[in-house]
């Protein structure tokens, strides 16, 4: 075991006390003198031309201070890349989804702002809408964007190896269609922004952002102000999960309303607005053809995806690329072919959500592997062990695996799930009558990127100020939206400087103070920002060493920092207190400041959105999940009383935080599999509240969740750590769906697993068996 003083310990999170006390300030908890309240008017049509907007009556309402429409933003559009900028702060010319932002008002109070919205008159010419991605790609479909013919937002076509030859050599080939539905991020804090424009050109904004520096650049471009004048201060964030990455209309509108009114403006969305018109996960249709040898060895995947992108591109290129990358992992796939279309539809915009594109593809691939195992009479555990990738493996597409504990996660999950006791292949059970409650177990594996390697600025920077009393402040642009990264980064500082966790303070991100950072997405903070913090902490320590060496009369290399003390290795009794060292160092000569700095970026080349060749990240996590399900065979209801997550996370920097990530992943995964669904009708969301949508309650999640960390000490990540918060949700769906098959012998290839679907599948199976029997007699 490693000999760390702080790392690897189950330490409570540093922001826990203020959050539990209710004194942690989220955006909606802030207010400024003279602050106005903003509200947004939204489109009642999924697709329409805006003929005229009359705001006169709204402007005349007493208490209204500003009204804005699309024209106020000129031609400004935003998006991930120069060629994908297709989103507007407020609609221009057309609305492309129901709920799209059309106008906004700021008034002295919310009641007045709401009243003003009712006074804005918008004349629309309703256009035919397309809300199905397959239909959107057909000739003659209504077109969303003039410059994107055929409604193609992203198209990726690639392949490695010789897929056709592999299929010829395969003993068994099967092809299936899978569908993953529209689900939401489910954060409880609605998107919110409080903005203050100070003439002539200074913006201060408090906004709920997991990746604040997207918005910092967006605002600079949109309002034509220098970046030095964009001050984005990050309050506590009430969950993100991918839905609080970039700039959204709520942010742009708050700033524009403040600019126009000369007063600070706060906009807090309602949950109804979030659920009906904010971003969500990509629904995907996955057609997957797989060829195997009769022993289950995978020879090739041929995959075609149609993703529903909604009305804008967002981070869609990364979603589509991710689905390809993780078609290649966690199993050995020597030959692979992939074609994906991300279609524009008249629906709210699809973006990243915990797992970004990978859930959908792994649901298809891992359930299909289970189907193949069943068809060939192979053991589900052994087929996974046989195909599992390993350290030193390089995928056909060129992803390099430097550390891999996949086999250990399989073994661990199997043991924790008491697999050998509970598992009986469906083939052995299929002739027994189904009881009222049928039980089954299922298993699935995953892999994930430890920090998505995107294009552009992709490194993290940390600055550590060591105060003269022996405490330290860590300045980082990596935000903590709840996952606990603030605690983990502070632990790294404490470890290197040999001080206590409570001696390290991490102020929240403030773009004029903290270093620019890509953001908290793609599981990058612990590994990428972690390395930056490690370098910065070593830098700070280096600055303390000369004085320490002088005072201890020892060579700098022999000096150790631990337990708030500095001493010569092996002689902790002759120690200097850390705070005495800092005090002396600060006063040395004519005085100095101890400021450590470190930057670290992934060394692999950026993701290739065109070919998918090369690495998606510098390190990959691996994991296995096992689910125990109970299926009520009369109602079709599926419950998951027990779930195991075994994850190769490299190194568990804080096991308590890791468990929280694993349990939270199960929550999101079970929700996605069984409960959650944005039900829509003609582009209108019929489930714009948490009850209709079905966010799981305490009763709906596994009562027992087992979390196992497999430590492989990755050569790249900080202290060997890899991600452990997103990959862990990737195989929740297939583990449950495989367990359902093990319980009742039906495959659910269309999410969510509603009771009615389960019942229908059972019935269809019975009818089919009967027909087969009759055909034979």
């Amino acid at each position, binding site marked *: 075991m490693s000999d760390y003083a702080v790392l690897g310990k*189950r330490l*409570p*999170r540093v*922001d*826990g*006390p*203020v*959050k*539990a*006390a*209710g*004194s*942690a*300030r*989220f955006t*909606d*908890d802030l207010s400024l003198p003279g602050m106005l309240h903003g509200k947004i008017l939204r489109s009642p049509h999924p697709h329409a031309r805006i003929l005229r907007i009359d705001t006169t009556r709204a402007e005349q309402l007493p208490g209204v201070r500003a009204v804005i429409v699309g024209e106020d933003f000129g031609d400004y559009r935003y998006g991930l890349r120069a060629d994908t900028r297709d989103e507007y702060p407020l609609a221009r010319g057309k609305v492309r989804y129901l709920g799209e932002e059309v106008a906004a008002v700021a008034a002295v109070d919310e009641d007045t702002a709401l009243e003003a919205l009712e006074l804005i008159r918008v004349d629309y010419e309703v256009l035919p809408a397309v809300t199905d991605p397959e239909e959107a790609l057909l000739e003659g479909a209504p077109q969303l964007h003039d410059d994107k013919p055929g409604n193609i937002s992203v198209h990726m076509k690639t392949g490695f190896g010789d897929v056709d030859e592999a299929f010829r050599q395969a003993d068994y080939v099967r092809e299936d269609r899978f569908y993953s539905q529209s689900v939401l*991020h*489910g*954060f*409880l*804090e*609605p998107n919110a922004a409080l903005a203050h424009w100070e003439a002539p050109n200074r913006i201060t904004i408090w906004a709920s952002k997991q990746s604040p520096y997207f918005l910092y650049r967006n605002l600079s471009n949109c309002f034509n102000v220098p970046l030095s004048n964009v001050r984005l201060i990050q309050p*506590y*964030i*009430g*969950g*993100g*999960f991918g839905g609080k990455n970039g700039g959204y209309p709520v942010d742009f509108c708050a700033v524009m309303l403040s600019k126009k009114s000369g007063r600070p403006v706060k906009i*807090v969305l*309602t*949950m109804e607005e979030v659920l009906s018109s904010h971003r969500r996960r990509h629904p995907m249709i996955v057609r997957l053809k797989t060829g195997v040898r009769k022993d289950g060895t995978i020879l090739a995947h041929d995959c075609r995806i149609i993703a529903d992108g909604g009305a804008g591109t967002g981070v869609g290129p990364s979603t589509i690329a991710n689905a390809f990358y993780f078609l290649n992992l966690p199993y050995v796939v020597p030959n692979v072919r992939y074609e994906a279309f991300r279609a524009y539809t008249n629906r709210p915009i699809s973006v990243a959500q915990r797992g970004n594109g990978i859930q959908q593809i792994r649901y298809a691939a891992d359930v299909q592997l289970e189907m193949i195992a069943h068809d060939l009479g192979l053991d589900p555990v052994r087929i996974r062990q046989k195909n599992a990738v390993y350290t030193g493996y390089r995928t056909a597409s060129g992803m390099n695996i430097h550390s891999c504990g996949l086999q250990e996660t399989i073994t661990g999950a199997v043991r924790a799930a008491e697999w050998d006791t509970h598992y009986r292949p469906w083939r052995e059970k299929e002739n027994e009558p189904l009881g009222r409650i049928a039980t089954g177990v299922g298993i699935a594996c995953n892999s994930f990127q430890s920090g998505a390697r995107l294009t552009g600025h992709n490194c993290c920077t940390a600055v550590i100020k060591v105060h003269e009393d022996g405490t330290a402040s860590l300045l980082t642009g990596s935000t903590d*939206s*709840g*996952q*606990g990264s603030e605690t983990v980064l502070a632990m790294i500082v404490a470890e290197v400087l040999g001080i206590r966790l409570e001696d390290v303070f991490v102020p929240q991100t403030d773009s004029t103070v903290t270093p620019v950072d890509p953001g908290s997405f793609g599981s990058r903070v612990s590994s990428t920002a972690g390395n930056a913090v490690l370098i910065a902490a070593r830098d700070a320590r280096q600055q303390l060493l000369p004085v320490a060496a002088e005072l201890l009369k020892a060579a700098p290399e022999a000096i150790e920092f631990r337990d708030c003390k500095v001493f010569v290795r092996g002689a902790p009794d002759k120690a200097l207190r850390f705070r005495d060292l800092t005090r002396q160092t600060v006063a040395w000569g004519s005085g100095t400041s101890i400021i450590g700095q470190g930057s670290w970026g992934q060394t692999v080349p950026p993701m290739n959105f065109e070919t998918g060749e090369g690495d998606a990240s510098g390190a990959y996590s691996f994991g296995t999940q096992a689910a125990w399900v109970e299926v009520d065979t009369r109602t079709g209801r599926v419950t998951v009383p027990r779930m195991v997550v075994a994850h190769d996370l490299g190194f568990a920097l804080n096991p*308590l*935080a890791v*468990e*929280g990530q694993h*349990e*939270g*992943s*199960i*929550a*999101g995964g079970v929700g996605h599999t069984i409960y959650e669904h944005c039900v829509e009708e003609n582009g209108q969301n019929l489930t714009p*509240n*948490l*009850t209709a949508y079905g*966010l*799981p*309650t*305490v*009763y709906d*999640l*596994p009562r027992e*969740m087992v979390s196992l960390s497999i430590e492989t000490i990755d050569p790249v990540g900080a202290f060997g750590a890899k991600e452990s918060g997103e990959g862990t949700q990737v195989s929740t769906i297939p583990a449950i769906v495989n367990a359902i098959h093990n319980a009742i012998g039906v495959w659910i290839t269309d999410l969510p697993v509603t009771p009615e679907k389960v019942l229908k599948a059972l019935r269809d199976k019975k009818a089919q068996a009967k027909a087969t029997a009759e055909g034979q007699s």
Partner: protein
Amino acid sequence: MAMQQMQLKVNGTLHTVMEQPHRTLLEVLREELGFTGTKRACRVGDCGACTVIIDGKAVLSCLTLAVEVQGREIITIEALGDGDRPDPLQRSFVDCGAVQCGFCTPGMVMSAKALLDENPHPDPDEVRRAIAGNLCRCTGYAKIVEAIEDAATRLA
């Protein structure tokens, strides 16, 4: 429909505000009295983030009219100690890892407090029942249930 004087007893202190009857307790607590620990999330009774305790019972402040709770004992998260001297429940939430983003936490703690005040030794089913109206996306609830059981032990 004019403004009227309302007297609200929050955390043992009587507050006098001029308000209209259509204001919810959540709005008055947050916007007039500065008790922003009570969170505004769904606003329609779907999530439990705005839970406060009135006369010993956990209720949703988003569906409660301020005008009708005059003269009653209103307890918000702010009454439960602070960062320095946390309530045992708050301590357990932190130590057990029951807090992640923290947005559901105040409501969750208030539901738990109402439970423990009435039933100091709840069984796991009673704990789950007490928080079934409080949604959390981050934790999967396991550590929240554990924290409440832990607090019950500390209080015993």
